[in-house]
Structures are given as structure tokens and as C-alpha cells.
């Protein structure tokens, strides 16, 4: 049987949950000797929708895009540092567009074996199922998906990794 976890990708969106997912991905990558990738998608689709609905001005779109790009750089850098600290090689990517579509594209492009996501928000309405980007990524990913829960346990596991 081929190694089922040759390539792992973790999705980072700037939430605490996604950082916990990154810690878990680093631990799993070390244990399974997998190649690790981290992806951040700048949600330009949402920005365009906000201009279209007139909630945003054009100038605001540009300003927020810059903010999101900086956010992506900051979080991907943080994840790189965490991986380096644990002796795990990591490749990071920043793309832009519709989040779940970009995730799917990157999985196909890199032939990812496992997508790791942070804990999903509580689904309290049908609307959440349709529009929550992590939820959509989970449903549309063409590979197995792992959802990371229990922040405290993951933190202990990450800290214990020498």
C-alpha cells in the first residue's frame, strides 16, 4: 500500500482554530513524515460582492485587500515559524479568489492526500451550511478532510513534540 499521507495541506484563515489546525498538521507531518503545505486564500470574491452590493466603496475594496494580504503574510509567517521550531519543512502559498474553490484547486494542483481544517463554526442555520467557507471547503474537497478540535489537547501535543 502506498503511503496515504505523503502530502498534507492545512488551510489558514487567521482564526485561532486554523492556527490550532496548523499545530496539529505539524505534529502529524512529523509523525507521518509527510510533506506539509499551508494555504491562505485572500477572499477577493467577498470583496467584490461587497462592492457590488454597495456596502463597500472601490477605495475600501483596495484598502481591505491590502489588509487581507498583510494578514495572510503575517499568519503564514507565523505558521512557518511554528514548523521551523519543530523541525518540519513547510511550503506556504497565498492565493486569492473564492476560498473553497481555491482550496480545491490547490489540492488538485499539488495532489494533496489530506486537507486539515480548523474546527468549524457551529451551524445554526441553513444559511451557514451554504456560505461558511470552511464548511464548503470540507464538502467540496476532492481528498480526505480532517477537522481539528480540542485546542488544549492539540497545544499539549504540539508543545510535547521535540
Amino acid at each position: 500500500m502506498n503511503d496515504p499521507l505523503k502530502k498534507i495541506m492545512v488551510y489558514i484563515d487567521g482564526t485561532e482554530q486554523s492556527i490550532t489546525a496548523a499545530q496539529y498538521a505539524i505534529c502529524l507531518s512529523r509523525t507521518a513524515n509527510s510533506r506539509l503545505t499551508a494555504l491562505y486564500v485572500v477572499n477577493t470574491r467577498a470583496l467584490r460582492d461587497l462592492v457590488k452590493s454597495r456596502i463597500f466603496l472601490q477605495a475600501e475594496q483596495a484598502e481591505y485587500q491590502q489588509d487581507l494580504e498583510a494578514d495572510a503574510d503575517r499568519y503564514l509567517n507565523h505558521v512557518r515559524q511554528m514548523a521551523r521550531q519543530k523541525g518540519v519543512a513547510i511550503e506556504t502559498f497565498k492565493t486569492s479568489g473564492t476560498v473553497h474553490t481555491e482550496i480545491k484547486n490547490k489540492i488538485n494542483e499539488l495532489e494533496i492526500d489530506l486537507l486539515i481544517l480548523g474546527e468549524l463554526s457551529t451551524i445554526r442555520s441553513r444559511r451557514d451550511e451554504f456560505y461558511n467557507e470552511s464548511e464548503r471547503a470540507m464538502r467540496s474537497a476532492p481528498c480526505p478532510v480532517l477537522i481539528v478540535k480540542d485546542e488544549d489537547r492539540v497545544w499539549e501535543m504540539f508543545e510535547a513534540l521535540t
Partner: protein
Amino acid sequence: MALIELITEEVVKVPLISKGKQEIIKELLQLLHDSGHIEQIEVAYNDVLTREAQGSTGLEYGIAVPHAKTDAVKSLTIAMGISPAGVDFGALDGKPSQLFFLILSPPDQPGPHIEALAEIARLTRFKAFCNMVTAAVSAREVVEIFRME
């Protein structure tokens, strides 16, 4: 974070009593202050007005989404209010605004701010939903409508 997780009874006011744009913003900020979500009302007020000065956030169909990046909050913060009579908010269609979403976020957290606004943009496409919310007579009813949706 889903919008519904932020919309609780303590940050929804029905009805809003103010009759003008600036007063509505102040009334919503006061609601956030009274519920312990912000301390520096003036800082947030100035940031919201600075954004409004660039172009009104009064949309069509009686909806307004005043928003700003501000140091007055530590995380994404939302207040909602309904003015049954409507207020002139400089809306695109020239009609009075009745349903208000005030969104405040810290300058270093653009992601949640964008997600919340995008969710409101999607919701406000459904006129039936907006009509149902606008017709609500209490904060509890507003929260229940959001949970049912």
C-alpha cells in the same frame, strides 16, 4: 465566526427611537456600550462618521450597514436596530432606512470584518427575509428570525 453568533438580544434594539443618521449611529453605539462591548463611544463614533463621509452605507430596500475599522473594539462587534418609521440615511434609492447593522472591527482583523459584511450582503438580497426582520417587534424576535433562516 458566523453572524448569528454575534447577534444576541443585548445588541439588538427594537425600536430605535432616533430620528436622524448621526443619532441612530450614537444609539447603536450606546447599546454596545451598555452591553459592555465597547468603552470608547466617541472613538467608534468618529471612525464610523469618517467612513460615512466617504459615502453613505444606506443601501436599497431600507437597509443600512454603517461600519468602520476602529481601535474602540478588540474583536468584531455588531449591533442591530430597527426603526419602524425609517430614518433618512442617504440611501441609494432615497428611501428611509429601517434596518441597521452597525459593524465595528479592530484594524488588525480584516478577515472577520469582511466575512460579516459579506454575510449581511447575502442576507439583504432576500427581500422577504429583510421584511420579516423589519416587522419584528422585539430583540428576541429578531434573534429568532436569524436562527430560523
